[in-house]
C-alpha cells in the first residue's frame, strides 16, 4: 500500500508539471506527420517518377515536334504553350490524386489509420497531412514541366504569368486532392487502384489534358466542357493569354471541390464510426 501511495503522488506531480509544459498544438503535431509523409514520398521512386518526371516526358513526346506558330483549335495558343499547361496540370493531378487515394485506402486496410486514432493527432490531421505532403510533391511536378517547356520549346511568358500559373495550377489541384481522399475512403484494398486509374485517365483524357478537346467529336466536346480537369487546365490557359481565369471555370472547379470535399468528409466520418 505504501508503495502505491508514493507512486500515486509522483504520478500526480508529473501531471502537474505536464500542465505547464503542454504547449502542443494540433498544427505542430500534424507537422511531424507531414514531414514523415514527405520523407516517404521522396523515397518512393515510382511515385516520384510518375508525378514529377512523367508529365515532363509526355510534354516532350506530344509537343516536342510541334512548332510555335500553329494555333491549337481556337485556343489562341500554340501547341507547346497549350500542352505545357495541360501537362503541368496533369502532373499536379497525378501527385495529389494518386498520393491520396491509394495510400489512404492501403493504410485504412493495414490498420495504420486506426493506430493514428490512438494518438492525440486530431482525426482531420491525417487527411490534412496526406494532402499537404501531396501538395509539396505536386509543386516540383508543375515546375519541371515549366522548365522543360521554357528550355526545350522556348515558351516565353512574363514573370507574373509564370507565378500566376504556378499558383493557379497548384491551388486548383486541391480539388483533386479532395477527390483522392474521397476515393481513399470509398474503395478498399484491391479496388482502389482500378478505381483511381479509371478516374485518373478518364479525367485526364476527357478534360483534354493529353490532347486538345478540339479534336473530339462535338458531343464529347460538350461533355468535356463540364469536367473538372477541363476547367482546371482552362485556368492556366487564360493566364497564358494574359487574362485572369474565367469566372465560369473557377465556379465549376470550386463547385467540384465542394462536392468532392463534402463526399470525402462524409466517407471519412462513416469510416471513423465503423472503427
Amino acid at each position, binding site marked *: *500500500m505504501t508503495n502505491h501511495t508514493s507512486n500515486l503522488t509522483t504520478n500526480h506531480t508529473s501531471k502537474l508539471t505536464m500542465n505547464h509544459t503542454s504547449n502542443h498544438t494540433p498544427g505542430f503535431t500534424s507537422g511531424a506527420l507531414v514531414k514523415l509523409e514527405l520523407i516517404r514520398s521522396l523515397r518512393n521512386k515510382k511515385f516520384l517518377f510518375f508525378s514529377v518526371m512523367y508529365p515532363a516526358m509526355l510534354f516532350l513526346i506530344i509537343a516536342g515536334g510541334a512548332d510555335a506558330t500553329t494555333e491549337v483549335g481556337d485556343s489562341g495558343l500554340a501547341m507547346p504553350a497549350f500542352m505545357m499547361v495541360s501537362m503541368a496540370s496533369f502532373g499536379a493531378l497525378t501527385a495529389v490524386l494518386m498520393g491520396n487515394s491509394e495510400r489512404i485506402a492501403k493504410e485504412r486496410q493495414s490498420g495504420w489509420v486506426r493506430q493514428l486514432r490512438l494518438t492525440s493527432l486530431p482525426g482531420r490531421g491525417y487527411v490534412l497531412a496526406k494532402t499537404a505532403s501531396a501538395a509539396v510533391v505536386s509543386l516540383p511536378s508543375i515546375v519541371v514541366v515549366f522548365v522543360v517547356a521554357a528550355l526545350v520549346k522556348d515558351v516565353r511568358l512574363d514573370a507574373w504569368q509564370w507565378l500566376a500559373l504556378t499558383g493557379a495550377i497548384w491551388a486548383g489541384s486541391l480539388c483533386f486532392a479532395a477527390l483522392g481522399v474521397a476515393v481513399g475512403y470509398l474503395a478498399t484494398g484491391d479496388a482502389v487502384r482500378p478505381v483511381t486509374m479509371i478516374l485518373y485517365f478518364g479525367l485526364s483524357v476527357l478534360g483534354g489534358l493529353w490532347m486538345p478537346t478540339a479534336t473530339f467529336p462535338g458531343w464529347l466536346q460538350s461533355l468535356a466542357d463540364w469536367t473538372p480537369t477541363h476547367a482546371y487546365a482552362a485556368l492556366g490557359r487564360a493566364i497564358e493569354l494574359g487574362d485572369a481565369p474565367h469566372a465560369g471555370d473557377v465556379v465549376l472547379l470550386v463547385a467540384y471541390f465542394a462536392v468532392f470535399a463534402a463526399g470525402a468528409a462524409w466517407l471519412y466520418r462513416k469510416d471513423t464510426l465503423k472503427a
Partner: protein
Amino acid sequence: MVHMTTTVTRTAAGGATRTAASAVSFERVTKSYGEVRAVDGLTLDLYPGETVALLGPNGAGKSSTLDLLLGLRRPDSGTVSVFGTSPREAITAGRVGAMLQSGGLMDEVTVRELVRLACALHPRPHRVDEVLAHAGITQLADRKVDKLSGGQQQRVRFALATAGANDLVVLDEPTTGMDVTARQAFWATMREQADQGRAVLFATHYLEEADAIADRVLVLHRGRLLADGTAAEIKAKAGARKVSFDLEELRAGDPDLERRLRELPFLSAVGVFGHTVRLQSTDADATVHALYGLGIYPRNLEVAGLGLEQAFVAITAAEEAKAA
C-alpha cells in the same frame, strides 16, 4: 469483494483523489452489430496501479470492449469514461497508450522514424532513444518497418503505445508472435509500468500470462462480465478441483467400473486415459470419499486446484449450459 476493499484503501492512501478515482469506467454499456450483441450491459471500473487481464473466448466481446474504451466505437447505450472524460479527450490529453492487434504500421519508414513520430504526437513524450530501448528495438532502429518479423513489429507497436507518459496502457493480445524470451522481457516492462502507478489492461489468450501477471482478472462472455477478481478468486469461483489417480482394475477393461466412476458425486468432468482417471469435482472431499466407497484401490491419488485456464473453461462452460 476483496478486490473492492483494496481499491478503496488505495484511494484513501493515494490522497490525490483525482488520480485515485477510476481510470476507466463502463456504466451499463451496450453495443450491438446488427443482431449480435457484442457488449451487453457491461459495468466495470479500473483503477490506477492495477494490472488487469481481460479474458474470454473468441467472440466474447473483448475487442469490442477495448474499441469502446478507446473511443474507436461509440456505445449504443451507457457511458464509457476514461479519467473522468470521454475516451477521445483522454487520448488527446496523452493519458492513454494503446496497442491493438488491428493496429497497423506505416510502411516505407524506419523504426526510428516511426517512433519519433509517435513521440512528436504525444503531449508528454519520452525521449526517442528511451522508447526504443524500453521496447527492446534499439538494434532495429534503422530497419524498415515493413521488413520486420511479426514479433518485431509487435514490439514496434508496443513502442508506439509507450511513446509518452501514459496513465493507462491498453494492450490487445500483446505477446502474439513473440518468443518466450521476448514475452518475459515484455511483461517485465509492463510490470514496471504498473508499478509506476499506471493502469494496465490487457486482453490475452495465454491464460498463464493472466495468472502470472495480472492482479485482477475479468472474464468476459457473450459481452457480459462473468467474473471479476484475482486469479485465485476466479479459480475458487470455478469451484472445482482436479482429482486424478491410476486404477489397475481398468487395465482389465471393466466397462462397469468406468460407468461407476462416472456416477461419482459432484463431478463436473470425467476423463479416462488408459488406466489413468482424471476428474473435476465441485466437492473433491466428497468425491474421494465415494471413490474409496467403490471398494477399489486408486494409486497415485492427487487432488489439486484448477489452473486458471481450467477455471476459465469451467466458468464459461457453466454459463453456456445456463444459456442453453
